């Protein structure tokens, strides 16, 4: 078992004929993702990678391939919001927005609309989702990940790859890794993904990769502290040395009005009993220790 992406994932690529869209359609196909169609307005009738037909509208694509259930969006920022609504309108239930620099008044509206329609949004400004060995809806390098039982959730792209690589070399494969995006307003947040992992039979532990800005880590920690999480959770927080008031690359990575510091997030996790790695390389040993602790707590 995995979360969000699995064997029955059938993908539509919006913005399929652009440079990024083409590159990653090819990469996803090589990884084994079932991509049935692409959409680029005005480019209907083209075929990309010899197998993926391009349509002018999402409606046409879904009429031709009713089994489509997910979309990945590479559409440029000014048009990304429109692409999200078009997918929701055609009944797709999982939408991964890769696009960076989406205006926040756009994303705040389409995330709320998606929630009201029961649609899951991942991103914007994210690397996407991978369930190693099965499928990926995203731009991450597949070979760094390996099949296993650690659920990963992260606000960052390359740092996820770094830590996936460390886990893979230490023998900890992953059930699913979700890059939720670095923007201030995103679809599913850390807590919601951790709750999905908590319910997932194929996941036995969770690695949370947070960073400065906002209070998603604090909210997650609060829930762990007062909830009933059985699976080991280990965290890493990037940005311990970030100065206040400066955006550290991601639009959402900013310490503002005294909130969103690494110290506050680390403290919140520690008080919830979640160990926080100081160095990425410590994550496997912390996981190992948590497994042993939980074993003692839960009995043999």
């Amino acid at each position, binding site marked *: 078992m995995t979360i969000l992406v699995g064997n029955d994932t059938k993908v539509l690529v919006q913005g399929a004929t652009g440079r990024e869209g083409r*590159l990653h359609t090819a990469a996803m196909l090589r990884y084994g993702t079932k991509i049935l169609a692409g959409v680029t307005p005005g480019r209907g009738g083209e075929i990309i990678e010899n197998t993926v037909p391009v349509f002018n509208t999402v409606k046409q694509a879904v009429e031709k391939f009713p089994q489509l259930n997910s979309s990945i969006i590479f559409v440029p*920022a*000014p048009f990304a919001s429109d692409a999200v609504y078009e997918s929701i309108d055609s009944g797709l239930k999982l939408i991964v927005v890769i696009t960076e*620099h*989406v*205006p*926040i*008044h*756009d994303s*705040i*509206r389409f*995330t*709320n*609309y998606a929630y*009201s329609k029961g649609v899951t949004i991942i991103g914007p400004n994210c*690397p996407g989702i991978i369930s190693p060995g099965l499928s990926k809806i995203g*731009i*991450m*390098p597949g070979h*760094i990940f390996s099949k296993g039982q650690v659920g990963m959730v*992260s*606000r*960052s*792209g*390359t*740092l*996820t*790859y*770094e830590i996936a*690589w460390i886990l893979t070399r230490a023998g900890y494969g992953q059930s699913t890794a979700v890059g939720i995006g*670095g923007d*201030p*307003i995103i679809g599913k947040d850390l807590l919601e993904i951790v709750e999905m992992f908590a319910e997932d039979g194929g996941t036995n532990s969770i690695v949370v*990769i947070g*960073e400065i800005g*906002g*209070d*998603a880590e604090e*909210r997650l920690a609060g829930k762990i502290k007062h909830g009933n999480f059985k699976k080991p959770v280990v965290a*890493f927080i*990037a*940005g*311990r*040395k*970030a*100065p206040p008031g*400066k*955006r*550290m*690359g*991601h*639009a*959402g*990575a900013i310490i503002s*009005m*005294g909130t969103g510091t690494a110290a506050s997030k680390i403290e919140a996790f520690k008080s919830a009993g979640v160990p926080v790695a*100081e*160095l*990425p*390389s410590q994550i496997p040993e912390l996981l190992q220790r948590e497994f042993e602790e939980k074993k003692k707590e839960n009995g043999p």
Partner: protein
Amino acid sequence: MKIHEYQARILFEQKKIPVPRGKLCTTSSEVRTAAQELEKPVVIKSQILVAGRGKAGGIRLARTPSEAEEIAKKLIGSVIKGIKVNSVLVVESVEPKQELYLGFTIDRGARKFVLIASSQGGMDLEELALTQPDKIFRREIEPLIGLHDFEARLAADSIGLGGRTATDFSSICKKIFAIFCEVEADLAESNPLAVTYDGSLVALDSRITLDDNALFRHPEYRNESEDMSPLEREASQRGLAFVQLDGDIGIIGNGAGLVMATLDVVSHYGGRPANFLDMGGGSSSDVVFNAVSLALKQTNLKALFVNVLGGITRCDDVARGLVQALKGSQTKVPVIVRMVGNNEEEGRKILADAGVATLDSMEDAAKLAVQKAYT
């Protein structure tokens, strides 16, 4: 991106939100004339994009036109908190009976707009939240619906307003929300919003922060952030995410999270990072060349650490850009490269031929960078 008070004030005036009479001036003689025309004591406000300009002496009261001129002579062209004052806003002095706070911003966690009001305006919202959290009225606004009239009335009522003042407050509340949506702001506020002795309201200060990502729809605002160092400005023009820090080990990487983690790891081993520089995913050799050249312009560097995890990025592209930049700069600074991923072998070979060794662990490379920098 912050916009100037005088720019925000124009938006307020367009919506007929009462503001003190006044004028933007760039010379001391203009200030004198403005003060004469106002026929009242005036407040002279430096138009600079930093917080706390009042405390730093950037906002001054003048009782006469000649005093206004004298103050303006000192203010215009002076440097406050590292920023040069090019213009001042001259407004009539208004004596408030009470100072209120009214603003709209975005609640990240809730994914909602939020209306904030307080009977205790004048100070920073941050300070208010710390000292008198019970004096803050806060209400989430549904982004798909917008502000209801009753929510504006609720805000007025909750901060203790009544009569005509409450009605006026609700009206201003709706107008500021309209501005917040129209210009796609992260923050739109009036602080203080003064209640005068006759019970009317005047927005004594107006502050708006725009969403950088929406600027393409608002071409009338150019990104002219003043609180940037020259290198930060150059980086922003080249599309690189660069933040100046106070150390001496230059840091470059691909991906914001990875670069932040690199700073942390270097610090963990006792290093002092000089900067944050994210080249972004999928970096081409041109981007790498630009990034390395920019980082090497920092004259105080004791080492440069380049940390690349090539998922999509090709290591050979990175290596070519790096070698070209090093040749161009003739730098003597030790360069430590950590590089793994796509086309790693070819990348390593290009760097080895140029005499640059590569490591494959970020932590080992960080240790080496610290060692080379300080011994």
